[in-house]
């Protein structure tokens, strides 16, 4: 019996050495973070060198809200801390898998957004595939390397009903716990999910919701790795107004939260640049006839039209515009960059320009490798939701590998990463609010394909981005 015990001890020790050997080497910055967060008592808060910025979201002075007034307080410039006791929680033993949550729209159901059939499954299924590939690749490399435990994706459907998202995240937090969560797409559901994540203290990374307000909540447990509608809106406005000189812009959008919040920065920026949006018309998601909205927009004699909504409606609206002789340039959100749009819009797609969170034409061996692996695994091409989910899941897996099975430490490693994450979607630098502050692009459709243009390549001018925050800015930097 003693020999057996001794043999078991030796075996476990050997396994420990093996695992130690296999653990990925941390870079010096990560090692320093680990030094600061490991070994703390429940009462101590590590000094993690909070990220501090002088400008929120690369906003130029001429599109800042209430630009002529020095605000009393400017938010989102200093990174939020997590000050609770979570870092002292010991790593569990005896786990059979390291569960990471996924929540996204993957099953067809009813939807709050439409009052009928849900509509985001096509996006959610690709998001799931991207996450699955990252997990499978991590398992092929040995899983959670401190114990050679496989990662397991805990999948939940986000069915578009506001309340159910909260229920699903609660289950992930308490019933069958996960170490971190990736999701979701619908901005209303995302807000619900992060409120639960905050209370339950589990990090949530978002890879598909471009609502600017998603991260404007001061929650230290939330990150996003996709360029949001604020950044895409700024670029579109700079192109339409500063470069092309359009003075009258009309907006048609879905009457859900995605449409409502998606166009906010375009509306505000246009007004602040002296060219307020001439008309904004909303439509019910799932409809086929947009004549009412287009009648009104046509009456307003606009120079350009912006659409914010899904690919299906985007193509229908464009076709109906062109059929009635409306020749205005057509600008859209990133959801129109899809085969569904191209097929439905046909020749009308020529010249359409969309905001886009990354450059898929970028020459990058990592991206090529990802595309190849994705195609081999799922027999379909990877698109934006798959690519961002792949990056997001890899960020979580990296943080788990480095920080161990401790939700607070997983959060810390993502929050404190100062170097951009080298994703297949490009470099992902997180801002103080843990939002993707990287470059966004314009996608222009021409000759049967999308071409991705940067601000630089299109020589799109931008306003003055100040070097100091608004509340401490002097007159010398607040100039117009």
């Amino acid at each position, binding site marked *: 019996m003693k020999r057996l015990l001794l043999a078991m001890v030796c075996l476990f020790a050997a396994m420990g050495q093996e695992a130690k050997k296999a653990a990925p080497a941390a870079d010096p910055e990560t090692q320093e973070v680990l030094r600061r967060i490991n070994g703390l008592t429940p009462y101590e808060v590590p000094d993690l060198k909070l990220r501090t910025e002088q400008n929120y979201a690369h906003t130029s002075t001429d599109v800042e809200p209430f630009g002529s007034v020095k605000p009393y307080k400017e*938010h989102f410039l200093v990174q939020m801390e997590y000050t609770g006791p979570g870092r002292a929680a010991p790593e569990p033993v005896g786990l059979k898998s390291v569960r990471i949550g996924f929540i996204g729209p993957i099953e067809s159901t009813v939807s709050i957004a439409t009052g009928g059939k849900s509509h985001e499954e096509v996006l959610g299924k690709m998001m799931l595939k991207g996450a699955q590939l990252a997990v499978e690749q991590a398992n092929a490399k040995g899983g959670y390397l401190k114990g050679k435990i496989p990662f397991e994706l805990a999948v939940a459907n986000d069915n578009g009903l*506001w309340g159910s998202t909260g229920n699903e995240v*609660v289950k992930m937090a*308490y019933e069958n716990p996960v170490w971190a969560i990736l999701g979701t797409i619908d901005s209303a559901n995302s*807000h619900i999910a992060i409120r639960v994540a905050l209370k339950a203290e589990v990090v949530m990374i978002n890879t598909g919701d471009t609502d600017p307000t998603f991260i404007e909540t001061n929650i230290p447990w939330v990150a996003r790795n996709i360029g949001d509608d604020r950044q895409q809106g700024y670029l579109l406005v700079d192109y339409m107004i500063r470069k092309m000189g359009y003075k009258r812009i009309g907006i048609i959008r879905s009457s859900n939260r995605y449409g409502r919040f998606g166009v906010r920065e375009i509306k505000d920026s246009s007004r602040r640049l002296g060219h307020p949006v001439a008309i904004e018309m909303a439509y019910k998601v799932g409809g086929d006839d947009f004549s009412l909205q287009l009648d009104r927009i046509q009456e307003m004699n606009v120079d350009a039209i912006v659409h914010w909504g899904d690919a299906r409606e985007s193509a229908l609206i464009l076709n109906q515009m062109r059929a009635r002789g409306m020749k205005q340039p057509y600008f859209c959100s990133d959801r129109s960059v899809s085969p569904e749009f191209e097929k439905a819009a046909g020749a009308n797609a020529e010249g359409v320009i969309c905001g886009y969170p990354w450059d898929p034409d970028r020459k990058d061996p990592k991206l090529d490798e990802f595309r190849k692996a994705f195609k081999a695994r799922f027999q379909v091409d990877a698109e934006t939701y798959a690519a961002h989910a792949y990056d997001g899941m890899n960020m979580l897996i990296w943080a788990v590998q480095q920080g161990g099975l401790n939700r607070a430490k997983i959060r810390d490693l993502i929050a404190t990463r100062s170097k951009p994450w080298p994703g297949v979607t490009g470099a992902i630098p997180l801002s103080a609010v843990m939002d993707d502050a990287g470059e966004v692009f314009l996608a222009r459709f021409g000759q049967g394909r999308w071409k991705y243009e940067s601000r630089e390549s299109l020589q799109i001018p931008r306003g003055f981005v100040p070097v100091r925050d608004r509340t401490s800015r002097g007159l010398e930097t607040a100039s117009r």
Partner: protein
Amino acid sequence: MKYLLAAAMLAACAAPAQTVGSGSKLPFVYTKWKQFTTENGLPNDHIFAVKSDGPRIWLGTENGLALIDKASGKVKSWTEKDGLPWRVVTGIDVDKKTGDVWLALFGGGLARFSGGRFEHWHQMNSGLVNDVAYGVAVENDNVWVATTAGASRYNTVTREWSVFTEKNAPMEEIWNYGVNYRDGKVHLAVWGSGVLEYDVATGRWKDYLDPDGEMEIDLYRDDGIVHVITTQANYIDKVLWVSTYFGVCRYDGRNWRGYYNKDSGNPSDFNNNLKARSGNEAWFATDKGVGAIMDAATNTWVAYTRDPKSKTGKAVVTRDKTVLETVEMGLNLTHNYILAIDVEDNDVFIATSKGLAWGVGDGYYGGLRERPKALASNGRASK
């Protein structure tokens, strides 16, 4: 000699280390504290809700309901194996008329603890709009529940349910976070929609929003709610107190006043919750300790924090941002990450993410008074 030594130690532990303006009026400072953790029998240290109910203190934890008998300090608890319908309790209120204890369950809906048994309402057996409940408040015969998908109201007499969402209330968003009832008004703190006020007599709603309408700035300090991401609202003495993750504020029916860490004694702008004791005094649950505004008229605060490296704590008295006094003491808070607060009579009850701290308010007074005699005797008494 022993007594002399003890007296010296007590003086060192609970003496004002720094006093500015000797003879000036100062607020009451709690120096006598009791602590309750799992070592005392709590089912879990992570305490989301606290409710003082006369001789009892009810606690909602991440893994069960607890009851502390104030007189004996004995703890009793209930977990799922004892019939609690769901492990995570995020809100508690007590019906003064019936003695029933109402529980908001985080993912489990609503429960009533009455006569030693639990009754359970959820989406599948009632009109509760969602099972992720953040708060509960008893209003006359009604029980209000703040859920992640709207507010629900249950009439305990007629057993009728009402649901309030964007369809019948001025909720730009439906993510209810806090609920409170007092003096004929129900107040909902709604994430993204500021504070909603429901007048029980008229059945009418009123909303309080951030006037600048921007997430990234607060344009003027005193123009309204400091931010629409609100976490709690308390109405008392015709004054509305509001907590947010971006600062806190007060509305007296005519004037708003915003408070930030940069212009007040509140230790942080990240406020999980609040409890108002009067129109002049309110306690805020921040992620860096407790901030108590003890005299709104003069912006005089007391901030309580625990030393992370020792079993000591301190209270810092400030006016605006000027430190008037620092009181070093023995252990006060069980942790600096505060989730909920209650006050009753002279005492305060601080729910943290690692236990409960009970501030014993012997000699408590509201507002400001001449110091420091009462403080010194309080400090010694705590030892």
